[in-house]
């Protein structure tokens, strides 16, 4: 049971649960600015849990990745998205979730599904924090669900970024971090992706005059 763990491991568990909660909050959030805000909170939680793992397992190199995710995922990318939203005057735009209750139930069943999938892996290992791996798989799947259910390009990008958060969390808690080169590479890839997405936003908007990507599937400008 949970009371046999050390305080730091308990805190890692709590962080895992809170990261799932932020994924659900993103799923239900229709205002773009708040969506980016919740995404920033998820980045901060991710960085905090990395630091906790670094402390409890005495792995100093994880502090570097904690700092990286703090700067890039907690501050830089949200700030970039925030600036984009402000510059493109989208801060009043609503990206309404259709059937929010169904999306939420779908999200909850994704968590159950990822638990079911990860159960054999967890049983094989002796690492106590390993059952957070199903949580991180759930975060990945929830990010995909966010991308599927939204029409707005910014919301889809946030979903994409949160998929990356889930993968990063899985790497930290189950294999105690990737090699530093890989980690640095991924961090900068994500950063570059954010920049490129920004350019794409302007491209999409100048060609279809909206960021509703459902319009991209129509061939002509004329309404039928």
């Amino acid at each position, binding site marked *: *049971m*949970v*009371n046999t763990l050390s*305080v730091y491991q*308990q*805190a890692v*568990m*709590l962080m*895992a*649960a*809170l990261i*799932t*909660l932020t994924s*659900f909050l993103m799923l*239900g959030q229709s205002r773009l600015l708040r969506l980016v805000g919740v995404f920033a909170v998820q980045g901060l939680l991710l960085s905090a849990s990395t630091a906790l793992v670094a402390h409890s397992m005495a792995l100093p190199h994880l502090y570097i990745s904690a700092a990286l995710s703090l700067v890039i995922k907690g501050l830089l990318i949200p700030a970039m998205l925030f600036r984009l939203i402000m510059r493109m005057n989208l801060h009043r735009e609503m990206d309404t979730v259709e059937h*929010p*209750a169904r999306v*939420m139930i779908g999200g*909850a069943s994704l*968590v*159950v599904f990822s*638990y079911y999938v990860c159960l054999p892996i*967890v*049983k094989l290992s*002796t690492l*106590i924090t390993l*059952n*957070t791996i*199903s*949580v991180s798989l759930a975060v990945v799947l929830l990010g995909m669900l966010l991308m599927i259910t939204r029409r707005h390009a910014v919301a889809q990008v946030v979903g994409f970024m949160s998929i990356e958060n889930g993968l990063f969390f899985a790497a930290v808690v189950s294999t105690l971090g990737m090699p530093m080169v890989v980690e640095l590479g991924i961090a900068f890839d994500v950063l570059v992706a954010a920049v490129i997405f920004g350019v794409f936003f302007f491209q999409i908007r100048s060609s279809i005059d909206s960021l509703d990507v459902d319009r991209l599937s129509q061939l002509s400008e004329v309404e039928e």
Partner: protein
Amino acid sequence: MAWLMAIGQPLLFILIAPLLTGWIKFVKCRLQNRKAPSLLQPYRDLRKLWVKEAILPETASWIFSAAPVIVFAAMLLAAAIVPLVAVNLPTARIADVFVMVGFFALARTFLVLAGMDIGTAFGGMGASREMTISSMAEPAMLMVVFTLAMSAQTTNLSLAMQYVLDSGLVLRPSFVFALAALMLVAIAETGRIPIDNPATHLELTMIHEAMILEYSGRYLALMEWASQIKLMLYGVLIANMFFPWHIATDFSLEALAEGLLAIVLKLAALSVLLAFSETLLAKMRIFRVQEFLSFAYLLSVLGMLSHIILEVYYG
């Protein structure tokens, strides 16, 4: 001694509940830069209502005059189940938390029946809203109970509190979610902002006040008192379930005094939190209540899932 405590504890609920309401009002007034009424004002209001003549509407049947007594009695019985200053009470061992939810449902049923009995538009409207909200709040409440029961291996409140007390300070993700969900449910069920505004009788959006609009005199006093006890019940439930420290585990005088002091301080702190949220938030549109409560339900489901995923081991 144990039975004496078991009888004394509901009486303590009855005595303290108006004070709690007064304290919440006091903190709210201070936060809003207003002059606060005395802490004893709710007692004075109750006394005033008690001595006034009670007028029954012409169309009222026996349900209308019986409902206040039944609602009050149901709250009193629920108060007997929830440990206030001491655990291990005989009454708390007889009935578990489902019985408490059942008492709440009983009280609500008669409140709603009384609202519809007189046949005014407001009564029926308030009744239908109350039922809508409670039908969404009750599943979330029960999911919270299930989550707690899975950790503590019991649905008995006294034993569950004992379990939390014994295991010391443990960070349980499921408890964090359950606490948040229970707070949202408590706000909805006790009719506080942002679901319902307890301070007004003159709004089209009122829920609780709409049902008891036709009551006067001692009937109204009983209804008000019952809803104050219900607010306190939820407060005590949150405080003692998640933070049971310093509750009395035996019936020695020092332990009881410590338990009483602890619960008073916990309730005071919780009401400051409530007053803050009531000051910061505006009342919701009635059609958004469903979102609010489905979020509570989501939190409780996540609590249960995180208990299964994160807190149970196979190693």
